[in-house]
């Protein structure tokens, strides 16, 4: 029986969550509306949630803009390479570390080693110099190799592996399975929800980073999408404008163009969510161990 108080609570809770969701959606819809509006309406601040003087001209402009598509391609390359590397490295690290120390001696050392890198890092300049001396500057590898080990994801996966019933791999062992078989045939199929989560983390990380692209790429041709977008949307400092920039002034107000590019830049990562959704299934191991 639901009490009155509980009813009120649910009601308020729902209203609060709906408002929160709207607050998150609002900027996105605003950007979308801007991207379909005429630039003079946008400059006069008339656009809120619905396009004013509907036009597709921003999208036509972006469609013809080769830099945008080139950086989009770099980003896809990065996600594909980086995501795959992250995925493999995470699994191959998490499995041995999730075993007992008597099974795998360096386990404790390795775990601490990884953990330390989360707390301390060498700083920007050493990071830059290492990558430069490794000859990675200006290549796609500079964007994927320094991030190859997502420590946080590894720790998540270790903890997930450790709470899987020990009896499962004992049974498999008795049936003659080695570590590889146990990992690929038992652990991974059982870990789909957490694997989907860490994959999502690493994809979003790769998609969203812009700073490394900026510092490590010597030519804007090699920028990933977010580094490119940063160059597009950063606001010009009006106190620093010189007479030489007169021609550039007309570019400041092209907010509709910026919006179109931002929206297109978000689109691919939105589309990933529904595809990973189906892996978020709970209770897969319930009933696997009897007695």
């Amino acid at each position, binding site marked *: 029986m639901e009490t009155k108080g509980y009813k009120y609570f649910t009601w308020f809770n729902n209203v609060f969550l709906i408002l929160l969701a709207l607050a998150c959606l609002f900027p996105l819809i605003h950007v979308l509306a801007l991207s379909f509006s005429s630039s*003079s309406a946008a*400059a*006069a*601040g*008339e656009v809120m949630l619905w396009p004013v003087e509907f036009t597709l001209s921003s999208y036509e402009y972006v469609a013809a803009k080769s830099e945008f598509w080139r950086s989009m391609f770099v980003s896809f390359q990065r996600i594909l390479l980086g995501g795959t590397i992250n995925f493999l490295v995470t699994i191959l690290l998490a499995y041995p570390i999730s075993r007992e120390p008597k099974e795998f001696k360096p386990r404790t050392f390795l775990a601490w080693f990884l953990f330390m890198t989360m707390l301390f890092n060498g*700083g*920007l*300049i*050493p990071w*830059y*110099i290492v990558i*430069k001396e490794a000859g990675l500057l200006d290549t796609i590898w500079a964007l994927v190799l320094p991030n190859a080990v997502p420590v946080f994801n590894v720790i998540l996966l270790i903890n997930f592996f450790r709470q899987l019933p020990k009896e499962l791999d004992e049974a498999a062992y008795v049936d003659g399975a080695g570590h590889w078989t146990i990992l690929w045939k038992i652990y991974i199929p059982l870990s789909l929800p957490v694997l989907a989560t860490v994959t999502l983390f690493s994809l979003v990380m790769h998609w969203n980073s812009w*700073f490394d692209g*900026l*510092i490590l790429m*010597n*030519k*804007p041709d090699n920028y990933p999408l977010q580094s490119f977008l*940063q*160059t597009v949307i*950063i*606001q*010009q*400092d*009006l*106190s*620093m*404008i*010189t*007479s*030489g*920039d*007169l*021609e*550039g*002034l*007309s*570019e*400041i*107000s092209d907010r509709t163009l910026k919006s179109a590019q931002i929206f297109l830049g978000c689109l691919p990562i939105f589309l990933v969510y529904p595809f990973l959704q189906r892996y978020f299934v709970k209770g897969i191991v319930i009933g696997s161990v009897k007695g």
Partner: protein
Amino acid sequence: MTKLTKLFLILLFGCLFIVITACSNSDTTIDDNSSSEKDKEPFGKYDPAIDVSFVRSIDSTLDLALVDGETIEDNVWLDYYRDELGINVTYDWTASAGDQFDQKMNVSLASGDIPDFVSVNATQLNQLVKADMIMELTDLYEDYVAPFAKEVLESDGSGPFDAATIDGQLWGLPNMSSSIDGAEFVWVRTDWLEKLGLPEPKTMDDLLAISEAFTTQDPDGNGKDDTTGLAVTKDLWDGYAGLKGFFNGFHAYPNIWIKDASGEIVYGSIQPEVKEALQTLQDMFGSGQIDREFGVKPGDKVAEDPAAGRNGLHFGQQWTSLWPLQANRDNDPNAQWKAYPLVSVDDQPARPQITLGTTSWWVVRKDVEHEEAIVKMFNGFIEKNWGETAEFDKYYMPDGAEGTWKLSPPTPSPPNKNLDAFLAIREAVGNDTTDQLEGEAKVINGRVSAFEDGDDSLWGWERIYGPEEGVFGIMDEYVNQDLFMRDEFNGAPTPTMAEKNATLEQLQNEVFTKIILGDADIDEFDKFVEDWKSLGGEQITQEVNEWYQNVN
């Protein structure tokens, strides 16, 4: 994300310091006596050609500069340097202008990985000298500079060189840019003036009356109380809708160093005249003449008001008719704006304050073999754009392109070039000889005539360069009457300045904003003056005076 960026910057500067101190140990002093064998010809060609490395910033306007399949690495300027001077320009890296370029540059400097020639700001120049990474240029400059280039480079006073001079030695060549173009004007929407029957602004009282009328008398005639008097941005000192021009009307000169009656250098922001100006602003805000929300609106947000016909008065530099006022004209073809000279609160003329227009200097890495190449490139750039053998249509602005001059790595330009273009146009229109105009003046005059022939999208250009009402006509008056109040301090930031200035500036802007908003009493200004002095201002003033004694 900004937090992250800040963190990176803090890390960066920490590391910068360590690396620079570490680098200074690896002393590679090459005593180069071979320069006596070198030619000393200002335009001497290298045979065989030499390779020199640069880095460069790029922005979207560069696309307009390129014609017929040219690229950043292969264009008319680099061809010139290669074919005429025997200098092969290569780029170590390119990045977008602004924040991105600065960050990448700082990483490069900190890791000691700089190109042969690089353009830096005064602070970076100072750091590079301390780290012993760059070369002293005093003799090199005198030996190789061409006469005309020398004339141009030294036409803005000694300021551009003072800033790059440390202990009497020159360490960087100024990438000359205009100082006077930073002067401010009063921009007024004149169709509103006519509608309300108001006189043009001649005094501060006129201006205040206009501001009040634009607020209360519904100048746009839509029956709604939606207009503001004076447009102001949250940053207070922007080139559009800043307040410098307003303060100058009260003979106050915020943010710059001025000479007081006794010949001492003092800081403009703490002088008593500032208080008067702030008081007036507070009153204007109180009576609704300044946007209630100005404290949170950056320039591009404030710009929506004139564009939508909700504002008709601001202080700004010569370009504001191109942005944002052109948007107003696009939306409303009846809108008309005009610039007026700064107005004064008493019978003394208002003096527009300006700072040094040159903000970057070219420095030479220590172990570069042909260090004089940069001076030759300076010579070539100035000669081909403004000299006797200038080929404007090829190098500055060819047909169908714009800003082609930007493709050259160094871009020193005559400080009064825009004013000179205006004067040439005005004279030619007066004598009916516009067909004889050359170079930039010809192109600009083409735009002005196109506007007169009905192309409203070029309205902004006519407002700047039009022979009748163009803003440069007022600039010419400023120059003739020698009205400019120049920043007396042009050096690299002094030690205390480097450490404290950011804090002091923030303090100043916060206090000023609070006073204007009425959140703080006007007497808060006196407290600010005390705070400013005790928080390092006194020390900075002393250092600035010492610097001033040294250069003069």
